């Protein structure tokens, strides 16, 4: 019985964690972490931007085209 509860509990936790990661990805909350891993893979010889500079640049770029509709 306890086994079943523990399994169900950990499954529920994993689903919650997956949901949270999804929300972070869709909202762009994890964008800097993604940038760091991309940067480490592609340009390991150069230092990456810090969090603030990255965010400023990303926001400027986001609002340069048509990003919102009616």
């Amino acid at each position, binding site marked *: 019985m306890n086994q079943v509860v523990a399994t169900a509990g950990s499954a529920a936790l*994993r689903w919650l964690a997956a949901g949270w990661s999804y929300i972070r990805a869709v909202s762009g909350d994890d964008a800097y972490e993604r940038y760091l891993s991309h940067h480490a893979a592609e340009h390991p010889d150069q230092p990456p931007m810090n969090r603030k500079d990255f965010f400023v640049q990303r926001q400027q770029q986001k609002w340069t085209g*048509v*990003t919102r509709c*009616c």
Partner: protein
Amino acid sequence: MNKIFGVVLAVIGGFALGGIALYRQEPINSLWIVVASVCMYLLGYRFYAAWIAAKVYLVDPTRATPAERLNNGRDFVPTQKWVAFGHHFAAIAGPGPLVGPTLAAQFGYLPGTLWIIVGAVLGGCVQDMTMLMLSMRRDGRSLGQMARDELGPFGGFAALIGTLMIMIILIAVLGLVVVNAMKHSPWATSTVFATIPVAILVGFYMRSWRPGRVLEASLIGVSLIALAVFGGGWIDQSGMRDAFDYGGTSLAWFVIVYGLLAAILPVWLLLAPRDYLSTFLKLGTVFLLAIAILLMHPQIKMPAITQFVDGSGPIFTGKVFPFVFITIACGAVSGFHALVSSGTTPKLISNERDVRLIGYGSMALESLVAIMAMIAATLLDPGVFFAINVGAGIAGATPEAAVHTISGWGFPVTVDQMAQLAKDMGEKSLFARTGGAPSLAVGMASIFGSSFGRGLLSIWYHFAIMFEAVFILTTIDAGTRVGRFMLQDLLGHVSEPLGRTSWYPSVVLSSFLIVAGWGYFLYVGVIDPNGGINILWPLFGISNQMLAAIALSVATGIIIKNSKPVYALVTGGPLAWLALITTVAAWQKIVSPDPKLGFFAAASDMASKLAAGALPPEKAAVAPQLIFNQRLDGWLTVLFTAILWLVILDMARICVRRLSGKEVARSSEAPYQPTKLESLPLPGDLHGAAPAGH
């Protein structure tokens, strides 16, 4: 298995749709409409979209997408398909699908509902998926660039002018909706005002205090805005009430000044944080509304078809054909989506086969939002619906006159009923609150109230108003900014420094010109005693459908060049329909001798009344502006129609050359490269990555 699923869907959907169309004796339940629409979207997605992807666009899962080839970790980023779906849906979902169905409900629930479903499945979803596909195969090029490459310089220029015009009309009409929702409502006005300092606070939080912590900042902002809804109720009862009680013209000036500031201030201060807040509110509210409709599944009280299909409608004039198709653009076919589908999203797609989910699927979901707006409008007593949505110039200036007129149409309503409703919603009066937002808010408050607690009706009402206003102000900010970039692009051809997007004098000048453009239409709409929406909304619908027709022309030209000519019907069919309805609607708006329908007829009618001294003094004072505006709207309609047909002819020229075997401009598709990308797992996926190609 898939076939059985399809057959079951077809049977349920067909049964529900047939039920809606044929069942006339008693009020119908809204659940029928939800079931019918969802089944149709799923059928369209499962069969039509899959067929288009496989046969017409030859979707190739082994072909590397621009996100993979040009991956720079910033705008070109291979993104998991559900994450890209979330991004794309947040980008296309705006206030449009909430307003159009509400206005079109004057014809009854049936015409609008059928058009939303059929228009989306065969037209809107196909357009969005097509633009996404074509832009993705061309390294994420914009609609304007594709029009130039594939049709020629004229097509590109027409797309640019068309986009700029639609932007100006769109912002004006949305500004009018928000002004009408706040007019003489201290609760709504103070709540909407409070969202500005909240957005600025969130902006500082995300930039300086905790850079890039988007979720934390948004959570704080959304909680503060929710508090502001309660705070507005407190202000409404307190001595500060009068400080937030404004008429239409003051609020119009507020929106104009706000729009100008938002366009010239740095994006991180106002625009970007407001967008985060409105996106969370939007997705949350839509989700909540869906659950509430399923829980409550209200009866639809509006008849299936009203007598106003003959063209005598009090909210806007014009017969059901073509005007239901013009009034509901967003939610069925929205040309604006072609801009988003050929911009940010194609740079995120990690595999070509995701295009069906992201393009077709997002639009189907947006169409479902329009269905929910239709339900929220038609669950009201029809008499109440018309009392809220018909301008004082038509229904009558006093409550007694208005209920007399509306009851005379066969939709009984009483002064007491309206007074009680206004009291429940925490408003002074709900008569003649045109624009669609107040009636949608009343509908949403009734749904939320009966699902999640009836005592809070006034809170729900003002929550709904605030939600629409926040949404709309975001579109005003973002639209003004986009309009500014386009204008700078145009001005750059005249004088080079004016084209520099970072040169401050040029930023201020071009922002000012764009704001002046929409500010003019907004101001005239506010002083119009008939509410202004009845003039501006059809103009917006015509321009939005015109943009869709331009996008579909580009697509048809490309299909003719690259594929079996008969497949061009996939986009050519919706194009023919849109060209028909916009042309018929434009023709009627231009030549109709009925002053309620024709722009020029209205101008002449008012001019002769003014000359004869037949207008009451308050109308005579604004008449010259209204007369000028009607003529201007008439000429704009002529311009829209001319642009539309020139683009269609340009496309037809390409088709004829291609079919008669002559040389046409080469397709600008990027060459094939095989993909090396493995299929991306969902963020935090439990099962890990699946191997590519499965």
